[in-house]
């Protein structure tokens, strides 16, 4: 029996391991091996400028993660705990910045800076500063905090807080000593993802940060593609991966320690707002996150509607036309391509990530931790390393995928995987083992008990992860730009292309395409969330 069980675990673990081995470890190892054989990595790593590069990269990512938490946590509380009208829509809207190409976020920030007089005209300027980088990263990542922490917060039994209040603890003390410790696993989880995203951020650093503020990611890109200095790029890529593994392991440790005291009981439905004071509190909690997400969205919509001197739907109509865009296809065709890739990538991410999460949450400690770290590494790996690696390594049958369409969703799934895992693992860990024991007592076998207990409890978190994986695939630009075909562009690559030439009409069409993408994302997230089982716990 014990042997059979162990074999089953191995079988479950093999799927994600094989996926990572073939589509991540092998390609990346191939490219690293290539670069290291041509020059000394140590020479590059020991340079003073490399030290500054690592320090700045880590600092801006850590700063972005902390700020995203500061803005995201109050909103996570509001979305999880309060019975707001249109909660579903709010949650779906929060994912939109993920699919917006950096160029759009950058342009929106620029427009906002201009409007509030911080573009330098009044002596105080934000354009091309570190502050601007941090702001843009908050726009892009506040959703991670709100959704990952929020989904966990909704599952917390509020009776512990209530008891503490009854015993005379102040609100602040309850938050500090009762709520936050129980939320800690999800907070660490979200912080880890935001950190990695900002650690490998590319467009924001170049567009918003301007020249002269390189990070590891932009330097890897520059050395590899603009200077064809593969040894230097490889050394930096290696350094990037070492830092990522170290940080992921540290965050994972913190998350596990925190999970020890965070067992979930029965959640209660969200609270209705009764007094004006409560309403004000909720509004204040939501406002910063809402402003960050809605302002760029508003700018996008406004620009997509700006036709000629006035406003209209002309740019949207033009999306269906095949000529006069500089693309080989009608811009709308890119939407179909993007959706196909994103659905495939999401399915891969959910299946592989789901199995991986079960292993991480329940299997032996060492193997589980190893897999956990391994799954996060692709998120912290530069798109250049991954893109070049896939092209160089997968060159012979049965894996000659270099010119196959399948390579795009596979690369996107690698980026989406951590979201599925990060959403699922805290939820799985937090399931009270006594529920499962109760099922066993009632006669269910161990796997049946897992199925009947775990699946309904975590179904919603799977969907949160799936929604993110979907959005990330729709918006992925880095690896996709290496792998997508010019005659079958995705929406981000088509937008990049449209924005790469003069002409107000093309610019308007790019913005219209962005609005279509945003609308599709909202719709898809709403549908994904509808799919959840009726008896799953709701926000």
């Amino acid at each position, binding site marked *: 029996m014990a042997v059979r069980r162990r074999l089953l675990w191995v079988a479950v673990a093999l799927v994600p391991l094989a996926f990572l081995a073939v589509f991540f470890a092998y390609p990346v190892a191939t490219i690293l091996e290539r670069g290291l054989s041509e020059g000394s990595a140590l020479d590059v790593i020991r340079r003073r400028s490399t030290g500054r590069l690592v320090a700045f990269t880590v600092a801006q990512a850590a700063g972005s993660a902390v700020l995203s938490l500061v803005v995201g946590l109050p909103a996570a509380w509001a979305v999880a705990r309060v019975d707001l009208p249109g909660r579903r829509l709010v949650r779906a809207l929060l994912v939109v910045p993920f699919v917006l190409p950096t160029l759009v976020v950058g342009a929106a920030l620029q427009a906002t800076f201009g409007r509030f007089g911080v573009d330098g005209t009044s002596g105080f300027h934000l354009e091309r500063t570190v502050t601007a980088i941090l702001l843009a990263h908050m726009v892009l990542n506040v959703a991670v905090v709100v959704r990952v922490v929020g989904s966990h917060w909704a599952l917390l039994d509020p009776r512990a807080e209530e008891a503490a209040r009854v015993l005379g603890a102040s609100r602040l003390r309850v938050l500090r000593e009762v709520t936050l410790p129980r939320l800690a696993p999800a907070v660490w989880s979200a912080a880890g993802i935001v950190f990695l995203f900002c650690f490998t951020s590319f467009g924001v650093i170049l567009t918003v940060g*301007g020249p002269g503020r390189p990070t590891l990611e932009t330097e890897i890109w520059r050395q590899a593609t*603009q200077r064809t200095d*593969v040894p230097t790029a490889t050394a930096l890529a290696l350094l990037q991966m070492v830092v990522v593994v170290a940080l992921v392991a540290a965050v994972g440790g913190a998350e596990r320690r925190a999970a020890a005291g965070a067992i979930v009981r029965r959640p209660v439905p969200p609270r209705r707002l009764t007094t004006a004071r409560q309403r004000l509190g909720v509004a204040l909690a939501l406002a910063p996150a809402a402003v960050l997400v809605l302002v760029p969205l508003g700018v996008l919509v406004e620009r997509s509607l700006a036709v000629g001197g006035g406003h209209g739907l002309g740019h949207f109509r033009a999306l269906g036309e095949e*000529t006069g865009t500089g693309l080989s296809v009608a811009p709308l065709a890119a939407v179909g391509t993007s959706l196909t890739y994103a659905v495939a990538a999401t399915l891969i991410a959910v299946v592989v990530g789901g199995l991986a999460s079960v292993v991480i949450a329940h299997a032996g400690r060492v193997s589980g931790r190893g897999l956990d770290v391994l799954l996060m590494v692709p998120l912290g790996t530069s798109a250049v390393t991954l893109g070049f690696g896939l092209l160089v390594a997968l060159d012979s049958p049965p894996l000659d995928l270099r010119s196959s369409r399948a390579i795009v969703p596979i690369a996107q799934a690698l980026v989406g995987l951590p979201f599925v895992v990060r959403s699922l693992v805290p939820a799985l860990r937090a399931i009270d083992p006594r529920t499962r024991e109760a099922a066993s007592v009632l006669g269910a076998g161990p796997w049946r008990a897992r199925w009947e207990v775990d699946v309904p409890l975590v179904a919603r978190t799977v969907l949160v992860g799936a929604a993110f994986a979907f959005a990330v695939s729709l918006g992925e630009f880095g690896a996709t730009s290496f792998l997508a075909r*010019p005659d079958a562009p995705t929406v981000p690559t088509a937008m990049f292309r449209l924005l790469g030439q003069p002409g107000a009409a093309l610019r308007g069409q790019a913005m219209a395409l962005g609005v279509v993408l945003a609308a599709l994302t909202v719709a898809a997230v709403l549908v994904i969330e509808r799919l959840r089982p009726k008896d799953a716990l709701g926000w």
Partner: protein
Amino acid sequence: MLILVLALTACTDDPEPAGVGESGTTEPDANACRPEELPEPIDPAAVADADLDGTTVTLATHDSFAVSDGLFDSFTEETGIEVELVTAGDAGAMVSQAILTAGDPVADVMFGIDTTFLCRGTEAGLFVPYAPEALADVPDEYRIATDDLATPIDVGDVCLNYSKTAFPDPADAPRSLDDLTDPAFADAFVTENPETSSPGLAFLLATIAEYGAEGWEDWWADLRENGVEVVSGWEEAFEGSFGAGSGDRSIVTSYASSPAVDVLYSDPPRDESVIGVVADACFRQVELAGVLRGTDEPEAAARLVDFLLSPTFQEDIPLNMFVDPVNPAAELPEEYTAYTTPIDEPLTLTPAEIEAGRDGWTERWTEIVLR
């Protein structure tokens, strides 16, 4: 762990950029840009005779590649060869990726390697020599590849653009690179970082071609004094600071064809461009195509190169990629010629000069302009 990483780094000074100050003063040797071993050229006669019905060739391009829908259909009908397209990011990424897979290429033909990357590509042994018949008609100035390792397809100019709104009287507009350091044009110019942008690099090369190895550094120091703005890419420069002619900055590094694109995609439609071109401050870039070494279909690949140089493809280039075809037999559409300024005396550097100097130049440029 992180502390360990940080401790490991930051121990040594950066190496001095090689060749700074002397680049451009020495003539690159005759063998520059040649691969170690030159492959056997593809014989045009064998290409003409081969029965290629049913074969498929893959064309690798950069992300600015565009053709009219169905353009390759006529090629397939005529030859029986199917064409598949793959992209690999911008021109630099495409060339780097091809160098990594040299000899075992993803595609059969590469289109879009330009003057600035050509030498790097040919030196790394990317291509098999092939000279299409139509190459004989192409002007010599465009035939920049050594040993026919690549075939010129189109030619474009990176030029200074200015806003006609900011300079309504043409007499006030900038007319040369010299003007940019004139206090009259203080805080007016925005350009791209040559380390991250292709037009940015072309503009740096233009200044080196104009002022030479001795003068370009001083010119850039003066330009910095005069308030130049540097951004990462073309989009941030043209659409951002220049505001497509209505922004804070009134002079920008863009293309000779920018006025044509501006009119063609104007909104609301208008028939006069708001953008002017400084014809005396342009850097010329030729884009080439080559048969990739290691292809399984050398004849079909060569046929595709023939097609790229044929009037069908050449006449499709202007309104899709907004550059000029190199084949004099190709007729230019009127919508294109009406708004493009012919650049008679562009600034140029040879691929070998660029390859020898570029890394040193861009590093020196960063020190002068960004630090």
